[in-house]
Structures are given as structure tokens and as C-alpha cells.
């Protein structure tokens, strides 16, 4: 890539440029903004539904309007200045796209005549300070007339409809009917219903927005993964031209998919700023966040797997009910992605999937780290273990006998995914070797023989996932080398903890030799970067990073011409030394010129390259996880003692950042397997709406992780990189779940749904003992 013999910075452990500020004065998140234009901003407080399903009668705001510090109380009835809703298309829309369904399924900005989940916004209260807002919001009297509550997969058959005009609680149906003939020829067929439970994303910074309308322009500061998409959504919802809106993304305190674009609450804040002429700011409380921010997962999966006694899987089927919550914000996208990736890393001749998306009186479901892929991996990996148990074979061996072999790439699955590159067997074998698999099985056998009350469980998962699923949407970059020799990279990608600023500066240094500390990275400001997509689906490096890389190459080639002109030499003789960032005639150091010399010679604008980079196809990272747990059979308590992984995302740009992504992903996967679940009671009341009840995983519940290096480059892009943001979660969930069940299999335990809490594990042990 780079010229000369210099050792590239790429692939090295570079500490982050972001960190000094974050460690000393802290990040500047939306609620930290102390801009003059926000000095007198009103504080927004939402009135939210305390009931899961009700029609709304009168809303009495008179008492609230007399509350101290009150500026305004606004409800849906005040929204008479918005564009008409799009024409009713029957709600079909694009069922596979991750966009809200319209027509009879439309979601209002503030509840109009009905509330459909606890936490649904009903009114917005503006006050001088936030304490006054809490007081005033309590004075808003809403006449809720309760309706029967619809919950769970049974919503499909419920008499009560959330959207009467839709005539059904089933928003999307897709897939193929069950063909039992596919299981002919199987010696063993195993069936199991599994729950992939509802989770709360819990970014440490909740949703936050500030908005100001001045001089015919709306400026919105929002905690989002996508400034440009947020502008697009705001323009549509508020009936504004995108040019009338500026969206700025300050530091973002985590997103995990739940901050893709922006939510109705943020749109209402922006609308209120325009409506009242006051700047308005809102930062939700955690209790609001746990019911107001979208949730993830929430699939019920009926799995069937069959094969021969020598370990060959012949057929696999999964039937999914996707609980989408009160509004189908993602249409059929999530279970669609689960279906696409259902077969996982295996070569299985017959694969069938089908799904139904049902609405329920719960918080809407959307993307959460993995977004449909962890659900696919959880299902197939649980199925592989059930099949292994059914034929009495070691689960590692069953996997090895069915993994797609390394000479089969590119490999097209029965579901139509084209896996680009991989060596799935090597990933599994590396993990087994690093973990000392035979020794672990010996220790397990010893504890089983001795009747140790603390049993050892070993769980495996092999996985493949899809990243940059919307590769064709691409990403933008604009790189400027200024007359003083410094550079600025403008990226359409969006950072919220991943380390984009460090990684993009590394890419510029590698190509141009301009030191990282002289490279400024700018993201998340639509006035400066009008075109961009942002961050989700582990797309940043392979699209946004490659765009920066290509922009750097383009700048370098422009500079070659300019340097030749400056030195009065032939362009073909010009050489860039990336270790010093200097141009010279090849072999003649006396002609040496700096980037400042060259860029200033190019003109006052310096050197500029703009790139819109798209890829022809997604990439497919893969790997294997092995979890070791100890299960106290007397209390049901699970202790996660080891976690060994190989997560192969192609060529690694910065191992420090890639490992960090894996660590965080693993922790969120372990959290789903062992501790986290968002729970409702039979009336649709959330039982886990604070962090004292929602068991966000802590340091004390996790071991240190043992990461095995594996890098199989992809040909899809010039960096050889795939995505790494979600792999840890995808692999960890089934590895840990399988480990818990593995520990208890001698007792006759065949399956335990997640999370494997002490109560649930203890109940499974008791039930197994009683049925013996």
C-alpha cells in the first residue's frame, strides 16, 4: 500500500486520540453542551403512559399550566402544523427493510387516541428547569380508559387488536411452510422451543437531544449513530427541507443499535422548539430509557434439527415469532436477518425458515447489538448441541463434521447468503486448543464421578455473521491536506465509542505520512458533511474506513502532480516517504518537500479528495467461542469462569480497538445468557424499569476473556477488513447458554431458556430430578 520500505502503522496497537479529553474534562455529550444558544433552553419532560393499553379521553393540562416555571404543555392536539401522513399503503411497505410500517400501523409522535405501551409519550412539558418539569408533568391529568392487554407470541390469536384498522396483530408473515419430507433419511430428529428473551440496550448515556429554531433554520444536537439519517427523518416528520435542518452529533455515550436515527421523542423536542420559539433540551432519565428506548431480541423460536447417527446434519428448520412491541418499527427486518443467517457456518442440505411479526403492548423492538444475527446463532447453536446430545456425540465433533470447509468459499447458503471467506474449522480448533478442551472434559468427568455439587459446564458456539449488510449504501469521506501540512478527514461514519478518530487518522498517516496528531477527524455535522450514512451493522471500517483510505490515495496522487510541478521534475520520478511525510525525486533527498510545501503550492484550498465508497456485497466474519461455567446444583447459581474466543474479522487495523469491540460484545452476550431480561407482568407493567431491577451485567459477574488471534482477509475491500462490533455478542450468547446446560446434562436437563438465573436453573434441576 504505502510506498517505500517503511513499516506501516496499520495493524499496530495505537492508543486512542479520543482518550485524553474523555479522561480529564469528560466527553461533551448532549447534556454537557454549554453553548450560548442553549443557555436559556427550556427543559423538556415527557408525560408517559402508565398503562399498557388504553384509549385516551380528555387530557387536562390546566393544573400543569399553573405550575412553577412552566413554559408550555403540548399534546398531539397541538400538532396542527405538521405535514399530512403519507398515503395509506395498507401498511405493507417494504417488509424486509428496517423501517417503520405505515398505513394502519403508523406510530404517532405523541399518542392521539390510544396508548399501546407503558412509557409511550402522551404530552411534552416545557419548564425553566428539569426539577420543575417533573413536578409539572405530574399535574397533567390524562383520562386513560383501559383496554385488554396483548402480550407474548399468543398476540397473533388475541381477540383484542392493537390496530383495529389492520384487522390483525400479525404485521408480517414470511417464509416457507414446513416440509417434513426434508427430515426423511434422518436417524434422529430433535425439536425444541426456545426463547430469545427481550433485552434493554442500556447505553450508559440515554437518549438526549437539544433543538433550536432560529432564522428559519432548525439546529438539532442529538445523541445518535447517524446524523444524516436523523436529518432525513426530521425533515419528513416536520415537513422541512433538509437544507433547513442542521444535525450535530456531539460525543455519544454508547448506542448499540438503539440510537440508529432518532426516536419520536427527539422529533417532538425538535418540533416543540420550532413551535414555541424557545430552544429546548431533553436528556432522559434511566427509568424513562428502560421503557422509552427500543428493546431488542424478543423472538420465540421453534427449532427442528435432524441428521444421521454419524453426526451429519441433514435438515434444519426454525419457525420464529418476533414480538415487535407496540409498533412495527423494523417491519420484518429482524426475523428476516435471522432467517438469512439461520444455517450459520454449516453445510446443511435442507434449511427452512418462517416467521411472523406480532404487535404487543410493550416497548417497540428494534436493533440491538447483532440485530437478528445473535438470534440466528443462538438457535442453530442450541440445535447443534441438542442434536449432539441426541446422537451421543461430542458437540465439538458434531460441529467439525458439519462446518463449511475452507475450500468452499465463496459459499452460497440455501438461504441465499454468499459467504466471502473463512476457515471455520481452524477457528474452532484454535479455540479448543487454547482452552485445553480435553483437559476441561477430564475435569468435568472428575466432578461428575465425585458427585461434586459444583458441576463444570463447557459450551461451544461456532458462528458466521453478516456485516455491512447494506454495503451498497456505502459511506462518504472527504480529506483535505491544508496549506500548513495538517489534514482533516470528514467522515459520514459516526463514532460512539469505537475509536473512529484514532482509526481514521491511522489510515491517513499510513497513506500520506502525515502524523496522526496532525490529522483531525470530523464526523456528525450535516452542515459540514451533508452526505453520509453513519454507524450500524458493523459497517464503519469496511465502508467509512475504506472511503478515508481511498480519499488518502486520491490526495496522494494529486500531490504527486503538484510536487512534480513544484520541484520541476517528472511525475513518474516523484516519491513519497511515508515515514517522514516528505516528497522528493526518487533517490535525491536534496529535492525533499514537506506536505505544507506541496499543499500550499496546490492553492489556498490545499489538496482535497471526496469519496463515496460502496461495496458490492457484505462481508461475513466468523469464529468460535468456548465458555466454561461452574453451576452450583444446590442453589442454581452459575459462575462464568472462562471465555475463550477466536473472532475473525479479516485484517485488523488496530488490535487494541478490535479487542475492545470483542470484549464489550462478549460481555453483552454473557449478559443475555446469564442475567439480563426485560420482564412484564400479565397487565403489561414493566417489572425491570430501573437499574435496580434490570440486571445490567457487572464486573463481578465476568471473567477476563481469552482472545485468540485469527485474521482471514476478505477480497471484498482493499483493507481486507470485515466488521467486529457485534461478533462477540453473537458468539458468546449460545456458548454460555450451552455451557450451563452441558453442566447439568447428567441430571437429565436438556434445555434451559435464557437468562440462566439461579431460580430458573434451580427449577430445571428440580424438574429433571422429579421426572427421573
Amino acid at each position: 500500500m504505502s510506498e517505500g520500505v517503511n513499516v506501516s502503522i496499520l495493524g499496530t496497537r495505537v492508543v486512542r486520540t479520543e482518550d485524553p479529553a474523555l479522561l480529564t474534562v469528560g466527553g461533551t455529550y448532549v447534556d454537557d453542551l454549554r453553548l450560548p444558544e442553549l443557555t436559556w433552553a427550556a427543559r423538556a419532560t415527557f408525560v408517559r403512559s402508565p398503562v399498557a393499553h388504553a384509549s385516551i379521553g380528555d387530557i387536562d393540562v390546566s393544573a400543569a399550566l399553573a405550575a412553577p416555571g412552566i413554559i408550555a404543555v403540548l399534546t398531539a392536539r397541538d400538532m396542527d402544523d405538521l405535514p399530512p401522513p403519507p398515503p395509506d399503503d395498507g401498511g405493507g411497505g417494504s417488509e424486509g427493510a428496517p423501517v417503520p410500517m405505515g398505513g394502519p400501523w403508523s406510530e404517532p409522535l405523541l399518542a392521539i387516541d390510544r396508548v399501546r405501551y407503558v412509557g409511550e409519550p402522551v404530552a411534552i412539558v416545557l419548564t425553566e428547569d428539569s426539577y420543575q418539569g417533573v413536578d409539572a408533568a405530574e399535574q397533567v391529568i390524562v383520562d386513560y380508559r383501559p383496554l385488554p392487554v396483548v402480550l407474548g407470541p399468543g398476540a397473533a390469536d388475541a381477540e383484542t387488536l392493537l390496530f383495529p384498522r389492520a384487522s390483525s396483530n400479525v404485521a408480517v408473515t414470511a417464509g416457507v411452510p414446513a416440509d417434513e419430507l426434508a427430515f426423511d433419511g434422518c436417524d434422529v430428529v430433535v425439536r425444541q422451543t426456545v426463547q430469545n428473551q427481550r433485552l434493554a440496550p442500556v447505553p450508559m448515556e440515554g437518549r438526549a437531544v437539544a433543538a433550536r429554531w432560529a432564522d428559519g433554520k432548525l439546529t438539532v444536537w442529538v445523541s445518535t449513530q447517524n446524523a444524516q439519517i436523523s436529518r432525513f427523518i426530521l425533515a419528513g416528520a416536520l415537513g422541512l427541507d433538509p437544507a433547513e435542518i442542521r444535525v450535530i452529533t456531539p460525543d455519544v455515550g454508547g448506542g448499540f443499535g438503539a440510537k440508529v436515527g432518532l426516536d419520536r421523542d427527539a422529533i417532538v423536542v425538535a418540533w416543540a422548539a420550532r413551535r414555541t420559539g424557545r430552544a429546548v433540551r431533553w436528556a432522559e432519565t434511566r427509568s424513562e430509557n428502560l421503557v422509552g428506548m427500543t428493546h431488542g431480541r424478543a423472538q420465540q423460536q421453534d427449532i427442528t434439527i435432524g441428521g444421521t447417527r454419524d453426526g451429519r446434519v441433514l435438515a434444519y428448520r426454525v419457525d420464529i415469532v418476533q414480538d415487535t412491541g407496540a409498533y412495527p418499527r423494523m417491519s420484518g427486518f429482524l426475523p428476516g436477518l435471522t432467517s438469512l443467517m439461520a444455517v450459520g457456518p454449516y453445510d446443511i442440505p435442507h434449511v427452512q425458515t418462517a416467521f411472523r411479526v406480532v404487535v404487543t403492548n410493550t416497548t417497540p423492538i428494534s436493533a440491538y447489538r447483532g440485530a437478528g444475527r445473535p438470534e440466528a446463532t443462538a438457535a442453530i447453536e442450541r440445535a447443534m448441541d441438542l442434536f449432539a446430545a441426541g446422537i451421543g456425540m461430542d458437540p465439538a465433533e458434531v460441529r467439525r463434521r458439519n462446518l463449511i470447509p475452507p475450500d468452499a468459499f465463496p459459499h452460497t447458503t440455501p438461504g441465499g447468503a454468499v459467504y466471502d471467506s473463512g476457515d471455520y474449522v481452524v477457528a474452532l480448533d484454535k479455540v479448543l486448543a487454547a482452552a485445553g478442551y480435553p483437559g476441561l472434559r477430564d475435569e468435568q468427568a472428575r466432578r461428575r464421578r465425585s458427585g461434586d455439587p459444583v458441576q463444570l459446564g463447557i459450551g461451544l458456539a461456532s458462528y458466521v455473521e453478516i456485516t455491512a449488510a447494506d454495503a451498497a449504501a456505502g459511506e462518504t469521506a472527504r480529506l483535505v491536506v491544508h496549506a500548513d501540512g495538517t489534514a482533516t478527514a470528514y467522515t459520514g461514519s459516526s463514532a460512539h465509542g469505537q475509536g473512529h478518530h484514532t482509526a481514521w487518522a491511522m489510515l491517513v498517516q499510513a497513506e500520506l505520512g502525515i502524523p496522526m496528531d496532525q490529522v483531525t477527524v470530523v464526523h456528525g455535522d450535516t452542515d459540514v458533511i451533508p452526505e453520509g450514512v453513519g454507524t450500524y451493522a458493523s459497517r464503519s471500517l469496511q465502508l467509512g474506513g475504506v472511503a478515508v483510505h481511498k480519499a488518502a490515495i486520491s490526495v496522494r496522487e494529486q500531490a504527486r502532480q503538484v510536487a512534480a510541478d513544484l520541484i520541476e521534475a517528472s511525475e513518474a520520478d516523484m516519491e513519497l516517504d511515508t515515514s517522514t511525510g516528505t516528497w522528493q525525486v526518487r533517490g535525491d533527498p536534496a529535492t525533499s518537500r514537506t506536505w505544507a510545501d506541496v499543499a500550499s503550492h496546490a492553492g489556498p484550498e490545499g489538496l482535497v479528495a471526496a469519496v463515496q465508497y460502496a461495496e458490492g456485497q457484505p462481508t461475513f466474519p466468523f469464529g468460535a467461542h468456548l465458555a466454561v461455567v461452574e453451576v452450583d446444583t444446590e442453589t442454581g447459581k452459575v459462575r462464568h469462569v472462562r471465555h475463550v474466543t477466536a473472532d475473525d474479522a479479516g485484517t485488523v487495523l488496530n488490535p487494541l480497538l478490535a479487542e475492545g469491540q470483542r470484549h464489550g460484545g462478549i460481555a453483552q452476550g454473557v449478559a443475555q445468557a446469564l442475567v439480563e431480561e426485560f420482564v412484564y407482568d400479565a397487565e403489561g407493567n414493566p417489572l425491570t424499569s430501573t437499574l435496580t431491577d434490570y440486571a445490567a451485567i457487572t464486573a463481578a459477574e465476568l471473567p477476563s476473556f481469552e482472545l485468540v488471534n485469527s485474521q482471514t482477509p476478505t477480497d471484498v475491500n482493499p483493507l481486507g477488513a470485515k466488521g467486529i462490533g457485534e461478533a462477540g455478542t453473537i458468539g458468546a450468547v449460545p456458548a454460555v447458554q450451552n455451557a450451563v446446560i452441558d453442566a447439568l446434562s447428567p441430571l437429565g436437563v436438556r434445555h434451559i431458556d435464557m437468562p440462566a438465573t439461579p431460580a430458573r436453573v434451580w427449577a430445571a434441576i428440580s424438574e429433571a430430578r422429579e421426572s427421573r
Partner: protein
Amino acid sequence: MKLTVTVNGRPVSAEIDDRTLLVHFIREVAGLTATNVGCDTSSCGACTVLLGGQSVKSCTLLAAQADGCEVMTAEGLAGPDGELHPVQQAFRAEHGLQCGFCTPGMVMAAVSLLAENPSPTEEEIRAGLEGNLCRCTGYHNIVRAILAASNQTVSREQAG
């Protein structure tokens, strides 16, 4: 009520609403925004500061309770010439932060932990951080950073 709290060595006096929480006093009155609010149940620790040298969750105290006391926030850790505190240095070197939102509270919790136990084991660190949530790092590198800050050996876990 009128009160004075010494924040990072600087006395801050103000007339405030009695019910003002210490974290809001720090953020809105003292104007120091490193200290974050991550929950409303004293569960997450993003608001951790030192009060009289002890770590406290500043969302759980009224500002009035800190009247006349010394508070230290993340802004007060670095040396006068901007040199990072050893815990801050270790968090950077070991990549113990990603989005940064939990970081000021996590760093203050770590400073307090090391003041009480200068050479903690990994298990003691994990137990000591139970009241501080991080959603990005899986805690792995935070634990390593605290081990490194206590001058203990940190192993590289890369196996193959």
C-alpha cells in the same frame, strides 16, 4: 439555601433549591460536566466523585450534605501541568474506555479503590467495581488498567 462546596480545591458558593442533588450542583453550578448521570437509582456509578476523599455516588446526596466539604471530580485528577494521574494514564494505555460516559465515575471509583487497597487482586477489583456499570468494555480492560495503575503485571492475553 446558601452553601459552599470546595470542588477540586476551588470554593463554589451558591444559592440553591434545597432539593438540589450534589451531581446537579457539580454540573450546573460548578460547571464541571465530566461527572455524568447514568441512572436514577444509584446503580450505575457514572456520577462517582470523592467526598472528603471517599467515593460517593453524587446523585444520591443532596448538595446540602456536601456543604463545607471537599469534593474531587475527574477534572481535579490531572497534575497542574496537565499530566495525567496514574489511573488516567493506565486507562488510556490499556484501552479501559470506549464511549467515555462511565469513565469519569469509573476512574474515581478506581482511585478510591486503590487508596483503600493499593495492590488489589483481579477478584478484589471486580468486586470493588460492582457499583459502576460500563456497557462498552466488558470491564476487561478496566480491570487491567487498575492492575497496571497499582504497578502489578498485566498479562497480554493474545494466545495465538
